[in-house]
């Protein structure tokens, strides 16, 4: 009973590390972007109404 209640993995279950490595890779890309100030450029664009984007103008 107590074993059933205990959260966690069974002996035959292994952690799938692929999503974690993949997320780490994309985290690295994100940090590179931040390091070269890409968010500043994104913010600059997002603050303006993109007329062509919405089909106006």
């Amino acid at each position: 009973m107590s074993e059933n209640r205990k959260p966690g993995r069974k002996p035959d279950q292994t952690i799938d590390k692929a999503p974690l490595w993949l997320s780490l890779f994309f985290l690295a890309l994100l940090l590179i972007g931040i390091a070269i100030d890409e968010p500043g450029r994104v913010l600059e664009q997002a603050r303006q109404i993109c007329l062509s984007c919405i089909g106006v103008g």
Partner: protein
Amino acid sequence: MEFVRKWVQTVAGFLMNGYWLFPWTRNIYQGPLKVLCAPGLNCYSCPAATTCCPLGALQQLLGGVRLAIASGQYFFGWYIVGAMGLMGGFLGRMICGWACPFGFCQELLHKLPSPKFEIPRGLRHLKFAILLLFVILLPLLAVDEFGLGSPWFCKYICPAGTLEAGVPLLILQPGLRETIGFLFFSKFVIMTAFIAWAVMASRPFCRVACPLGAFYALFGKVRAVRLRLDAHKCTNCNACHQVCPMGVKFNESPDDTECIACLACMHQACKFDAISLEFCGLPLTGARGKRLAATEKTG
């Protein structure tokens, strides 16, 4: 669980569209939160939008890549691709099912009474072509005399942009009405077509044309949070086919890239505990969770 999901979708929609001063300012939100990347498709020119649309931002960066390099800035979309990939690596298309405002809109539209139709499965591949062509290649390669590319998907296709930004801004800023032309009307037709289609079929834009869904679908087999089928418990009763809003036949293809992990198959269909939710291979809910809950109830 469906009730919880609807609440999460509502809250996510409000978080991404939390600027409610726009009827008075008659303009879009221009604060610092707009540096954050929305997980779902949400036009950043929407007057209420508080975050930036990952697809719009990516196209703008790719379109301006030549000018950026010329000025010594290597803006290739690292930040946006990194943010999208991070979300995709953890949740994949679960974002479509739980945090995309446009997906939520389509779900609500589908509740309207009307004849319902299935979407041909072959059309699902179109969104990958749209991602490659309209979001990446055309903004990057089709440039004007100044070396500047256009956000092709936003400009020519995106119905979310027309619905969330085009129409509201025309209402808020009457001066813009004089500038509308063929482009706006063509996008308006696309938007109307998808709205009508969404009434008659489940999530047509997500299944056929959404490039953000296509990007997240690339993580279908490697995302951290995913549904798992216990083949020993599955009786192939096909009950999961009936409830899936994305037309996934879960017992036949449990790693289907279309799965938005809405959990309808797990909670509304499967009576045999054959479907469970896992994080990096470890069970979160489902068979074990239900057993634990039952054990706790009986003491």
